[in-house]
């Protein structure tokens, strides 16, 4: 560790070049040891740099395995190969490892994995659970707040959902597969499934999910994009009799309020 020539005469790479070269060596195992890695007594340059290469991959693989335990359960020994391919294809641009696997579901659709679309859907379900877990906090309204809207001589014009509420339509039996992992059972055969699901974080801060009724499955996406009640009813009139819609909306709203999904009740003066 003895000092060499001062920076003004240094023959070495600039710091920027050095960091780019070091990182390139981590990302691509086929590249050689960065030129700035000094020869030292004891371990050779290659062995020293391999410690960093190994740590880089192990850390990222660990994150994917921790975020996607059900996927790892289903694909079993192929998980490492998939993780390596994802790490190669998607170097992290995130500050937090929390986001490293954000593109993992999409990536899985591009692989030659048998049932790749179903496995990708399971990965999407696991990411939705993560997203609901640490989504922003917000107030929650209850049925008494709904009564208060009417008591003020106003009418309900729309609702804002809690930021943790998500709707997914995976197209496969991903929830059954997820339960198999949770209960330590072998993976179940994949089957197509049209059920839509809602995921949310409850008042106890636990992440929950449940199947949506066919009416909720159509209503929820419109609420999530901020449609007013009038717009929602108009859109649903193509499928339901106009007289059916208000009681169905009222029933869904009562349930959503009870489950803590509703953050805000929007109102306007009653006609």
């Amino acid at each position, binding site marked *: 560790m003895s000092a*060499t020539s001062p*920076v003004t005469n240094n023959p070495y790479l600039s710091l920027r070049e050095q960091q780019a070269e*070091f990182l390139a060596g981590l990302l691509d195992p086929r590249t050689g040891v960065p030129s*700035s890695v000094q020869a030292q007594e004891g371990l050779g340059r290659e062995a*020293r740099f391999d410690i960093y290469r190994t740590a880089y991959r192990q850390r990222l693989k660990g994150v994917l395995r921790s975020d996607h335990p059900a996927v790892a359960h289903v694909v079993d020994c192929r998980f490492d190969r998939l993780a390596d391919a994802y790490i190669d294809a998607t170097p992290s641009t995130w500050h937090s490892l929390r986001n490293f696997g954000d593109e993992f579901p999409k990536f899985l659709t591009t692989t030659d994995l048998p049932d790749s679309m179903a496995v990708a859907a399971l990965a999407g379900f696991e990411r939705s659970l993560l997203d609901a877990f640490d989504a922003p*906090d917000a107030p929650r309204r209850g049925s008494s707040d709904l009564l208060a809207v009417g008591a003020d001589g106003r009418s309900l014009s729309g609702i804002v959902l809690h930021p943790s509420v998500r709707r997914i339509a995976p197209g496969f039996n991903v929830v059954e597969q997820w339960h198999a992992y949770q209960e330590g059972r072998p993976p179940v055969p994949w089957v197509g499934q049209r059920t839509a699901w809602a995921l949310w974080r409850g008042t106890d*801060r636990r992440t929950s999910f449940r199947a949506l009724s066919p009416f909720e499955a159509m209503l929820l996406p419109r609420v999530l994009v901020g449609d007013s009640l009038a717009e929602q009813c108009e859109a649903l009139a193509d499928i339901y009799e106009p007289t059916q819609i208000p009681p169905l909306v009222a029933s869904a709203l009562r349930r959503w309020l009870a489950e803590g999904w509703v953050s805000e009740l929007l109102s306007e003066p009653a006609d």
Partner: protein
Amino acid sequence: MNGRAGAPQCVRGVPRTSRSTAAAGLGFGLGLRTPHYDQVAHGVEGVDFFELLSENFMVDGGKPLYYLDAVAERYDVVLHGVSMSIGSVDPPSREYLDKLAALARRAKPAWVSDHLCWTIAGGINSHDLLPLPLSYQALQMVIERVNYVQDVLERPFVLENISTYSTLQPTQMEEWEFINTLTCATGAKVLLDVNNVYVNARNHGFDPHRFLDAIDPDSVQQIHLAGHTDLGDHVIDTHDDAVTDEVLDLYAYTIARLGPVSTSIERDDDIPPLEVLLEELDHVRDIARDQQSVSLAS
């Protein structure tokens, strides 16, 4: 470092930021890890402070922030990050710093720390603590970055010496010279990881006491202790086991020289029940007490 061409210089005596927190010892703490969140939020005896991993709480809401508030209400806390990448040539992320500043306003930590390393180059994050060359160029850049970070955070910043496996050219000073000049020039403090000193001494072939003797005592804000994996011809900083006797001996040596310093244990893998870490912390507390008794007696 005096008089070397191209070398950043600093003369002790005019710290850039307040040193008022330097003497404010927090006692003996633990790095808070996910398996222990619930237990700690409900209160445990035998820990003076908790060190929270900043990035675990830089989220929008949910359980992490609930636990943050619960722990910060019961205990003194410090924030410890892994992603600032203070040594990157890439400019610091203002978005990251603003989030960290917001987290600090919420948690009210005694101080905020990160690592003296780089993780990002060209916008790609390795998520690993990568070494800087011990060069004048690197030192000058880090001095500028630390000043900027302290301006954004509006508080003194604390930097941890990392464990390294490669030395990068050019080497123009010793690691402790790099750190001493940095803290002198910026008023930043040191999170002295005694395990990392041991790991580097083994991996690079120097006497760890040279490092501990040379580091400016006034700059040391906190001490880290952790376990490592000894592979014979080299040592990996794994944080997956108890602190080794060799590192505890160095810790005793450090306390004998520095006096009381806030000390915490880190465990990041094979995390045992909290009670096991509390026992280990008691042992560390005893070592520190013994060293202080010896110092007073002499």
